């Protein structure tokens, strides 16, 4: 092992080092602007160094930096950049000493990036824990009653789910004798393997991962954590933490062919259908925007699993494109919530948005674009993403799942449109509309996200091309 072997890890190191620099910096000089700028600079530098990694580089047996990993790390870094920008104005005045927020943000970004690059159970576990331990603190960060409650719920359930995950890892390790993803499939096909133990192992790992992805029936924590967490952190939980875990899941099941295990395939198909229905049906009952978006994210992960179950290279394209669209849309939607939030509470009741179009037409238009994309209306990135998922599912003849997806999209349309109707209704009496001026950085970010959303919806070829080039190496 030489220094040159570690060179591909520079993007990850930049993130880690900048969190340490900020931590040491805070000891001498507390300033939100300073920590915020350092964070943005760290993420930007890490993003630029991604382009310096050439070809596929395996770093020990733990991490691999191939095009797939680089793409996902780039996506994760971009999302954290947006969250860092959104949170800067949000945090002001909510509690003293807000600088540590950025350390935690960088650390969880690091954990998620490690997940996207990991090829080994040890790096998987470490990445997941770096991500979740910093998330516990981020969720409870502003320390009001709801924050703490959300933090406690996430803490207890996430810790228990990692115990299940680890037990699964131990069983798979015991049966196959390896923790490397690439050698696992040969270990599985070896003679004298105990099928029962192997399937128990897979089931336990799936439980742990399913919890992180918030798919039914492991979704119970999601609405409460989404509602209780500060709005930018909610955006972070919905995008960065799920994106990293999904990237890992996809990589794992490309190495280990799931179609060889009908029971495993059936279990994932059940999870997909259950998530779609649970997410969409329960969202109909909600009166809180954050909770609606939480249930909608459960449903979206269900859609993603449909593409995940499809075979071939098509699924990587479908999943990746959908995740990009989902990232943009979710960040945009929670960005609007963040911008409108007053200091006492977040703007999360549906009534807060009544007649938003009258006071803030641009914000209302942006929010509508995001909701249209979540619903999968043409001209938005969400439509193209859904189209690819249906194509991938149909290509593998998963008709039942595709039909479920279509039914669920129709159900989903109802509650997205309900919010949009409220946006354009007569203004009600809400203190949220009284927010005097909108922060400039946040507005710029939202405009940029909307442009990206429409651009990908109208002209998706460049991104598709990029994803195709990335998947060719598999």
């Amino acid at each position, binding site marked *: 092992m030489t220094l040159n072997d570690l060179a591909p890890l520079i993007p990850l190191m930049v993130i880690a080092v900048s969190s340490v620099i900020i931590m040491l910096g805070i000891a001498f000089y507390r300033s939100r602007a300073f920590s915020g700028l350092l964070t943005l600079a760290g993420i930007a530098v890490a993003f630029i160094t991604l382009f310096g990694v050439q070809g596929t580089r395996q770093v020990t047996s733990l991490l691999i930096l191939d095009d797939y990993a680089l793409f996902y790390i780039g996506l994760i870094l971009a999302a954290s950049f947006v969250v860092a920008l959104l949170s800067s104005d949000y945090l002001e005045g909510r509690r003293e000493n807000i600088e540590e927020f950025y350390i935690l943000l960088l650390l969880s970004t690091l954990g998620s990036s490690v997940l996207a690059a990991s090829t080994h159970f040890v790096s998987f576990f470490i990445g997941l824990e770096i991500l979740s*331990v910093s998330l*516990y603190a981020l969720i409870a960060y502003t320390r009001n009653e709801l924050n703490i*409650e959300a933090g406690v719920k996430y*803490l207890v359930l996430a*810790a*228990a789910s990692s115990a299940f995950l680890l*037990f699964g890892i*131990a069983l798979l390790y015991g049966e196959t004798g390896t923790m490397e993803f690439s050698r696992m499939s040969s270990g599985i096909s070896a003679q004298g393997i105990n099928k029962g133990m192997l399937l128990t192992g897979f089931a336990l790992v799936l439980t742990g991962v399913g919890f992180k992805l918030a798919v039914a029936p492991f979704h119970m924590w999601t609405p409460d954590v989404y509602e209780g967490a500060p709005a930018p952190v909610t955006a972070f939980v919905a995008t960065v933490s799920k994106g990293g875990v999904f990237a890992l899941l996809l990589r794992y099941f490309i190495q280990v062919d799931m179609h060889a295990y009908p029971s495993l395939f059936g279990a994932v198909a059940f999870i997909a259908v259950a998530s779609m229905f649970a997410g969409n049906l329960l969202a109909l009952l909600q009166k809180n925007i954050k909770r609606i978006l939480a249930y909608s994210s459960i449903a979206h992960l269900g859609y993603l699993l449909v593409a995940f179950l499809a075979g071939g290279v098509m699924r990587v394209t479908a999943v990746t494109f959908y995740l990009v669209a989902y990232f943009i849309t979710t960040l945009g939607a929670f960005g609007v919530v963040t911008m409108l939030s007053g200091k006492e509470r977040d703007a999360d009741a549906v009534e807060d948005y009544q007649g938003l179009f009258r006071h803030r037409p641009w914000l209302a238009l942006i929010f509508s674009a995001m909701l249209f994309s979540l619903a999968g209306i043409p001209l938005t990135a969400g439509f193209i993403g859904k189209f690819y998922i249906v194509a991938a599912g149909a290509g593998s003849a998963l008709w039942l799942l595709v039909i479920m997806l279509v039914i669920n999209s129709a159900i989903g349309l109802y509650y997205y449109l309900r919010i949009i109707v409220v946006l354009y209704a007569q203004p009600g009496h809400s203190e949220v509309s009284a927010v005097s001026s909108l922060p400039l950085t946040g507005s710029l970010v939202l405009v940029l996200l909307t442009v990206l959303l429409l651009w990908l919806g109208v002209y998706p070829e460049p991104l598709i091309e990029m994803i195709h080039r990335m998947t060719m190496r598999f």
Partner: protein
Amino acid sequence: MIPLHWYLWLSAVVFMVGVAGFLMRRNIIIMFMSIELMLNAVNISLVSFSRYLDDMRGQILVFFIIAVAAAEAAIGLGIIIALFRNKVTAHVDEANEMKG
């Protein structure tokens, strides 16, 4: 030498005790202890697999698990103290502002 499956049974039993404690107790500190019990059950099986396969990697993972469990306990107790300051209770059912 004690056969492998004895260790696995021990580990499974300790894990189930942890799961039972996690599901049945409502005091958050006890729930946290149960999670530690589950993690240590995993450690037992990892070490025994590692010994049985004559492969050190399982034991290395155990060190990571111990370190991570310590980090988790540090953050976790911090959040529990914050909860206690708000509610003067360590009972999870008292944290019930959000429903639905």
